[in-house]
Structures are given as structure tokens and as C-alpha cells.
């Protein structure tokens, strides 16, 4: 199993979720994060003082999938989260050694 962790623009979340359920994914977990990257925040003026916004709001999607799904999942995320503009985010894939469904105690593939 693999954990696919994607950092995306917040307003793309619904599209990403739909593209993943289209692949048969049944669950995923989302968190609010702040991203620092090549995409520089706008320069804003607050009460006459200029400053640059370093951290931009992003959403982190974490989804654990069977090894053979990783390719499609990453591809779907990459497509559906893409706007072509800087700051679209990243996808990272990590190994998962074990999975358990808390309700039933099922493990690994059955737990997803």
C-alpha cells in the first residue's frame, strides 16, 4: 500500500475528490495547511505598510491505496488539481507498511 499525499489549491478540493471517487476510492483525509514555495504571495498593504505574504493556504489530501492504484491516483490528482499556474502543488508517495480499519480490525487491503 502507498500513502499518496497531495498538496493542492483549496478550491480544487472538490474536483480532486470527485476524480478519485471516479477511480473507486472510498476514503480520504484532508487537512488545512500553509504552503511556502515558488509561488510568492502577493505584496499586500496593511494600514500603509507593504509586506509579502509568505505562506499561502493549501489543502493536503492524504489517501492510502493499494500499490497497483498509485499510478492512476497520482495521475488523476495531477490532472484534476492542475490549473497550469504556479503554486498548483505537489504529490508525494510514501510506503505504508500496514493498515487497520478501526471499526472491524480488518487489515491492509481490506482496511481501505
Amino acid at each position: 500500500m502507498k500513502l499518496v499525499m497531495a498538496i493542492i489549491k483549496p478550491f480544487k478540493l472538490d474536483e480532486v475528490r470527485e476524480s478519485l471517487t471516479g477511480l473507486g476510492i472510498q476514503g480520504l483525509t484532508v487537512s488545512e495547511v500553509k504552503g511556502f514555495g515558488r509561488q510568492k504571495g502577493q505584496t499586500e498593504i496593511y494600514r500603509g505598510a507593504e509586506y509579502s505574504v509568505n505562506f499561502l493556504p493549501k489543502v493536503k489530501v492524504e489517501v492510502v491505496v493499494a500499490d497497483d492504484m498509485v499510478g492512476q491516483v497520482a495521475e488523476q490528482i495531477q490532472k484534476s488539481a492542475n490549473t497550469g499556474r504556479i503554486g498548483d502543488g505537489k504529490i508525494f508517495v510514501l510506503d505504508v507498511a500496514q493498515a487497520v480499519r478501526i471499526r472491524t480490525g480488518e487489515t491492509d487491503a481490506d482496511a481501505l
Partner: protein
Amino acid sequence: MKKFMSFSLLALAASIATVGFTKSASADVSIETAFIFNTFSFAFHGALVMWMAAGFAMLEAGLVRTKNTTMQLTKNIALYSIAGLMYWVIGYNLMYADVSGFFGTPGPWSAADPFDAEGMFIGDDAAGYGAASDWFFQMVFVATAASIVSGTMAERIKLVPFLVFVVILTGILYPIQGSWSWGGGWLSEAGFLDFAGSTIVHSVGGWAALTGAIILGARKGKYNADGSINPMPGSNLPLAALGTFILWMGWFGFNGGSQLAMGSAADVVAIATIYMNTNLAAAAGVVAALILTGVMYKKVDLTMLLNGALGGLVAITAEPLAPSPLLSIFIGAIGGALVVFAVPLLDKLKIDDVVGAISVHLVAGIWGTIAVVFSNADATIGGQLTGIVGVAVFMIITSAIVWFVLKLIFGLRPSEEDEALGLDRAENGMEAYPEFGRGSQTI
């Protein structure tokens, strides 16, 4: 037939008689004492109505999404300010100065008080009052109409065209139609009665908002292709509740002050009766919405209770004095109930009214205007409908023209990206709650 003000005091005295009390013939209250009471009533009740500006600001800030909250506050404080300036520059006189039938005489307002050259009081009328107090009281009303527009069109109209609309609404459109009735023009002659403005203030704002909402279109993502609705819940319900309580309190000024005098026992009893009826109608609006949403949805929708209170308040506004307590409760309950049905209906029509202002101010306003006939013997269905329709036609046509012209000149909507980002970042460059949740700039 009320609010003729400076320009038709005799008609006023006559109209008061019709609603149950005449002024005391015994010269028990001296002319100057009455003058003080009348003037203070305008000033005090006007301050309460000014407070409604805060109420609208909080209600709307609570019912929009976080990303548009700063903008909603900006619009509200700006519109109140613009209304206050425009009504001095041109509005008041257009509404009340030498009304010809269809409008008055544009130009800046100036005071004329009953003092002689040495500053001695020379008033000779128990219905007299200070000119500035009347201006102040009339001014705060016009801001109310503009607040309605800001609520409906929230989250997707750019600041500049919105503010230009407010300039025209408060300086020209509102005063012109106001001159027809409160200014003594053709509608007052047609027998149209609207004590404190269910139609003249609330529906006027409602029509402008409805026309605007249709021309502007819904927030992106609000209505799905399959006809289903994507609710966009208000971000801060305590603010929305606070706003409603503020409006409720301010409404004692709105309706009570519209008695336009406090210098006699009859007037002050009228004011107290208005307070009571206003409160009963609002309470009935809440209870109606409580029962309806509880029964229909099995869950009690707080936002509907808040709108219900306002629906009750708007409904009683056309005639807050004449009804018995029971009738006030009835008028308010129907006002609240109408809101509960109108909100989803507008959604079905894909008219996106962010805070429910059309349901509250227009729908309940029409109801209240008609309901005048239940208690005021001088009112006729014909007269009331004439007023409702007359104002509707005028406001729909003129606001449509203004909105289209503004669309041509400025464009009404922000870019899709700016709308998604939120107007706070796009047009204010700042967030309402920068440290909460994902909006934080400090992390």
C-alpha cells in the same frame, strides 16, 4: 399618509386623528415643551435607527462566508456614510421640498427653525420640531434601504459599482418615490398608507436588490447543473444573531419615531403602543419560523428564526399603531412564515439572495402593506396595491437601468478567480479573521 413632515403638517394632524387619538385640546403641554419632546423624539429615535446600520453590518457579516466578510463590512459602513451625505446633498429636498406630485426640488438641505433674529423661540404649533432632528431621522431611513441591497448581492459584486448604485439609490431613486407618499405626492393623494415604510423603505430596497440579483446572477457554485442547491452557510452565526437583536432594538426607533411627534399624551401613548406592537410582531415572527422549521425540517434553523424576526418587523412597519396586540401577533407571524417559504422559493428560481433580504424586506413588506387594511379604516386595498405596484414599477425599471449602465461602465462581477479567492483578498487585500483556520498569515 404619514411623514408629510414640514411640508404638510395640517394633513398630518388630520391623519393622526384617524389612527385613534387626537391631540389634547387642553393647552396642557406648552408649545415649547411639545417642541422639545417632538425634536427629542426625532433625535432619539433617529439614533436608534442609525444603530440599525450596525445591525445590518453584523447580520450580513455573519451570513456571508469568511472570505467575503471584510468586504461586507466595508460595504455596510460605506453605504451608511454615503447615504448620510447624499441625503444632505440632494435627497431630502428631492423628497420633501415643494413636492410637485412626482418629486420635490433637488438641492442641499438647510435648516429653518422657529427662532427670531435674537434666537427667541417663536414656534406656534404644538406639532413643531427642530429641522435638523427631522433631517436626521429621515436620513437614517434611506440607509436602511441601501443595506438591503448589500445583503442580497453580497459575495459577488465589486465594491465600486455597488457604491455608485448606493449614491443613486440614496440620492435620487429613494427620494423620488418617497416624495410620492411621505412627501405628499400622488400616492398620498391616491390614499396609499404606509406608516413607517414597509413599502417605502423596505420594499424599495427589496426591489432594487431583486433586480440587481437577477442582473448580477448567482454566486458561482451556488446552483448545480442538476437543479440542486449548494448551500453556502453563513460563517458566523453569533454575529448574525447580534445583528438581528440590534435591528430589533433599532426598530423601536424606526416605527416609534415615525409617529413624528411626542409632545402630547396621545402621541406618547401612540409611541408606546407602537413599541409594544412592534415587539409582539417580531416575537410572533420568531415563533412562526421556529415552529415551521421545526415541523418541516425536524431541525430548527436559527437563520430562519433571525429572518423570521425581521419578517415580523417589516410586516408590522406599515401600520404599527392601529392593530390590536392580537392582530399585531397575526401580522408578525405571517411575516415570519412568509420568509420561511420565500427563501427556498427564491432558491428554486435561482435567485441568489445571500442573507434572505428579498424574502424579509420585499415579501414581508408587501404583506405588511396590504395588512394595513385590517386595522386602519382609511386604508383601501386599492390604495395599498396602487402604492405597492407604483413603487415596484418605478424601482424595477430605474434600478435595472442603473445596474445595466454600471455593468457597461465598470462591470459588476469580479473575475472568477477573485470570486473564488474571496473579495476580501481581491479588493480589500486583507482577511476578516487572518489568524483563524486556514486563513492564517502568521503560520
